[in-house]
């Protein structure tokens, strides 16, 4: 309990922090990355330090107050440009995630079905032995919650050390289509703009996106402008009304998959009305279509005439049929994009990414902006958001995907493999040329019996919870329980749906219990230091990877040696002596993160994603890449890529330069993709569209936020949102428990009619945060052909009154 002196102390600090945010005539303060935070209380052993929030991809910075080895206070960091001192309800509680009562504190091995405590030495030996016995059937599954050094170490261990490309992240499930959309359009991943676009746009279009709940601090940058009297029009395009709709000037309710038709319809009218930006298109763009046979992200060049021909059928009337959006609203959108005098930002996240046409819709929305010239000025931007704190930094930049290498390199390209082998000082040919299994395939192969070709036998999961997040859980995860030769290793903080089937559980350190570096949605790389010790024997994920690698080195695995015979993760002190970082008691004898980051940094220049030295990030609240050294030795970040006014890599004399163009001519690609209907649609047997997603109070699978009493009280259970008329027609009451069924599985849920989200008739929505109500038993594993990202936003389902089923039927 706090003593009264400290309470007074913290109360005055709370008032000072809040008071400072209401100054500057009511607007949010302008802040600088190196600004000191000098009005937080110190003394009495209370020490503050910066860290990015642990939750979403926004990348808010917090100040973490530590006293006597425990996090006791959280403040919004006023020196952080992202959040300017503000936090959302989850960020407000982030310190508490460390202190759930059921933290995992010892390694646990399942013996005869029962979890038994073992020591770390035994745990590391078990993992190394399984890998040594069958290195090619080992797979590593991580996430966008891996820090950059953790992901880089995992990547080097797998692709460099083991010559095994079966490493993939859960980010495959949330933003892979954004990646393929950026690469198809610009030849390089990640947004050109930044959050400043939200401060300067006249129109904000949310495409299947609910930032009011999922990225509330970012959304408040827009609503704050309104509160100051600025005119910002919000147009919400979605399949159900949300809190974002409540703030929108215009709500356009589309049929599932309607976004593809809407984007095509806008482009059709821009061409038809001759009000696209001819100068921008002629100077900076090509037209592109998919190959007729074996389509690729490269596509094939098409003429403007051919583009006009293909898009001609997407008239407002036709788009209305496909999307459900009235033709006059399609014209309204096209008129807005046809107006060069306004600035338009498009924002999207899971709605466009979890989509069997995810790459297509991402490319088409970029195309709308390029065709109309609404690109490259502050406020004129197509921008995707991420749901995890380092989906960009660790997955997209480090390249912890089954086909990728660090620095935008690809395993399939010999010259890229050679480059990486050079940086890693490995024997030529060490890196395997065949892409590994993407997430869905990895789990298919793990849950398929070995005798039937299931060639993943040992799977190591770090910082994610696939037992709750995979689609079609019955097929992709739950089948593991009957396979004795399959071995699941899970590094976790709390017991989860995934640890339920784990054979070996490793207790992990989290967030400020370890050093870390994240990369947020606007290309901002953010560093923090360890502030408190993890509980019990919990240890860093990065250490686990290095410890397994060293055990393999000791066992004689040749891949764990570089060309000079040294351990691939060798770190030496100033005298040249190797520091035994594989022994946890020596792991913090040096800053392993810094060593790994500096090694990784070499890769970042190859795609002009240049990072500054580690120590620059220690000083800053993040820096947006490319970060380039100036003549005076300082480091300058980049807010707007490809535009000459801000991007140092734009060729001299150019106003725009897409310098990683897939056509190698400095141009971006405007794609045509034909609309195709969703692969599974409601029918007589399964008459509803099922959409899944998130809620404000819980972060993803709720493993952290469900341990926070205020958040859990505010949102204690998952539910199914239904339209009142659908419920009435089915004689279903508010709060009644029903059974949601699809062709793949079922889930019992209470009904919420006219709740926070309001789906239209024929649609139901279920959030996935609740580990006791696994809606992903019902979802569809079908995925986009390029990104391999599954579609969690639409499948066919039915709602069954519980009383209408026999007990035996329910149990099936």
């Amino acid at each position, binding site marked *: *309990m*706090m003593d009264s002196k400290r*309470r007074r102390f*913290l*109360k005055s*600090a*709370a*008032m*000072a*922090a*809040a*008071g*400072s*945010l*209401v*100054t*500057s*005539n*009511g607007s949010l303060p302008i802040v600088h990355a190196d600004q000191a935070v000098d009005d937080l209380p110190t003394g009495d052993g209370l020490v503050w330090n910066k860290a990015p929030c642990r939750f979403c991809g926004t990348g808010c910075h917090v100040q973490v*107050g530590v006293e006597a080895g425990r996090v*006791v*206070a*959280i*403040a*919004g960091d006023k020196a952080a440009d992202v959040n300017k*001192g*503000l*936090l959302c*309800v989850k*960020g*407000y*509680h982030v*310190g*508490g995630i460390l*202190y*759930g*009562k*059921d933290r*995992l504190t010892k390694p646990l091995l399942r013996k005869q079905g029962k*979890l038994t405590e073992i020591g770390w030495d035994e745990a590391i030996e078990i993992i190394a032995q399984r890998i040594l016995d069958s290195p090619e059937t080992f797979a590593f599954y991580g996430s966008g919650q891996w820090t950059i050094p953790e992901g880089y170490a995992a990547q080097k261990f797998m692709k460099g050390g083991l010559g095994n490309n079966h490493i993939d992240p859960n980010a495959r499930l949330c933003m892979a289509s954004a990646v393929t959309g950026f690469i198809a359009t610009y030849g390089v991943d990640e947004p050109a703009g930044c959050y400043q676009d939200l401060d300067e746009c006249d129109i904000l279009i949310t495409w299947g996106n609910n930032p009011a709940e999922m990225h509330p*601090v970012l959304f*408040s940058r827009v*609503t*704050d402008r309104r*509160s*100051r009297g600025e005119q910002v029009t919000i147009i919400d395009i979605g399949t159900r009304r949300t809190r974002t709709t409540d703030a929108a000037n215009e709500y356009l309710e589309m049929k599932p998959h309607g976004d593809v038709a809407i984007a095509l319809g806008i482009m059709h009218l821009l061409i038809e009305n001759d009000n696209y930006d001819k100068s921008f298109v002629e100077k900076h763009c090509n037209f592109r279509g998919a190959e007729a046979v074996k389509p690729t992200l490269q596509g094939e060049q098409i003429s403007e005439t051919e583009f006009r021909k293909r898009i001609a059928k997407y008239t407002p009337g036709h788009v209305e049929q496909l999307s459900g959006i009235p033709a006059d609203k399609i014209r309204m959108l096209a008129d807005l994009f046809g107006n060069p005098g306004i600035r338009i930002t498009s924002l999207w996240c899971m709605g466009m990414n979890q989509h069997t046409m995810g790459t297509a819709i991402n490319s088409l929305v970029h195309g709308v902006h390029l065709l109309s010239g609404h690109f490259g000025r502050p406020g004129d931007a197509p921008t995707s958001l991420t749901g995890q704190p380092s989906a960009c930094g660790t997955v997209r930049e480090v390249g912890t995907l089954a086909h990728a290498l660090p620095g935008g390199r690809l395993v399939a390209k010999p010259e890229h493999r050679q480059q990486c082998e050079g940086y890693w000082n490995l024997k030529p040919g060490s890196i395997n040329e065949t892409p590994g299994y993407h997430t869905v395939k990895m789990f298919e192969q793990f849950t398929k019996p070995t005798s039937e070709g299931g060639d993943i036998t040992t799977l190591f999961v770090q910082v994610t919870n696939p037992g709750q997040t995979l689609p079609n859980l019955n097929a992709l995860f739950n089948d593991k329980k009957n396979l004795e030769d399959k071995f699941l290793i899970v590094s976790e903080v*709390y*017991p989860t749906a995934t*640890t*339920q089937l784990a054979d070996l*559980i490793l207790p992990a350190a989290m967030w400020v219990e370890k050093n870390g570096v994240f990369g947020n949605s606007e290309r901002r790389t953010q560093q923090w230091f360890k502030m408190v010790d993890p509980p019990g024997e919990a240890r860093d994920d990065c250490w686990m990877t290095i410890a397994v690698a060293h055990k393999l080195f000791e066992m004689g695995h040749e891949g764990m040696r570089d060309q000079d015979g040294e351990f691939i993760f060798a770190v030496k002190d100033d005298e040249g002596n190797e520091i035994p970082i594989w022994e946890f008691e020596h792991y913090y004898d040096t800053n392993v993160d810094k060593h790994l980051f500096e090694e990784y940094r070499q890769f970042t220049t190859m795609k002009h994603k240049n990072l500054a030295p580690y120590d620059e990030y220690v000083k800053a609240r993040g820096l947006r890449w490319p970060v380039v050294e100036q003549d005076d030795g300082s480091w300058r970040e980049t807010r707007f890529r490809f535009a000459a006014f801000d991007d140092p890599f734009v060729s001299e004399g150019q106003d725009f330069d897409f310098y990683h163009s897939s056509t190698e001519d400095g141009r971006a690609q405007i794609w045509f993709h034909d609309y195709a209907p969703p692969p599974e649609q409601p029918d007589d047997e399964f008459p509803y569209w099922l959409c899944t997603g998130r809620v404000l109070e819980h972060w993803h699978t709720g493993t952290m936020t469900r*341990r*926070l*009493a*205020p958040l*859990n009280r*505010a949102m*204690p259970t998952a539910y199914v949102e239904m339209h009142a008329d659908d419920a009435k027609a089915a004689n279903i009451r508010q709060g009644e428990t029903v059974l949601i069924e699809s062709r793949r599985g079922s889930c019992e849920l209470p009904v919420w009619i006219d709740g926070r989200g309001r789906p239209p008739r024929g649609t139901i929505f279920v959030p996935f945060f609740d*580990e*006791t109500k696994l809606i992903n038993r019902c979802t569809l594993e079908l995925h986009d052909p390029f990104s391999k990202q599954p579609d969690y936003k639409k499948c066919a389902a039915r709602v069954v009154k519980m009383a209408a089923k026999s007990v035996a039927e329910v149990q099936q």
Partner: protein
Amino acid sequence: MPISGLVITFDSAVHDQPEAIEFLRHVSEIEMGQAAGNKLAIVIESKSKRRDQEIWNAIRALTGVIDLAVALVAFDEDNELENNNPIRNQT
């Protein structure tokens, strides 16, 4: 016993919100601070996180309130909900 520093944003100037201000004055756990334009700084010092959340929800529901943001929060312990589901109790 949480302490939180919050910023309330109203849809118009703070002095045009007499009903909301009156409400805030009558909640003993709330201390009002600086106001500028349509923003008002407050501190909540409550006996429990439950009470803190009740106050938070009540403020959000006030007419004229369009945003409630956190500037600082201090806490000493989290009274985690008891949870008997099998996933929590597997170890």
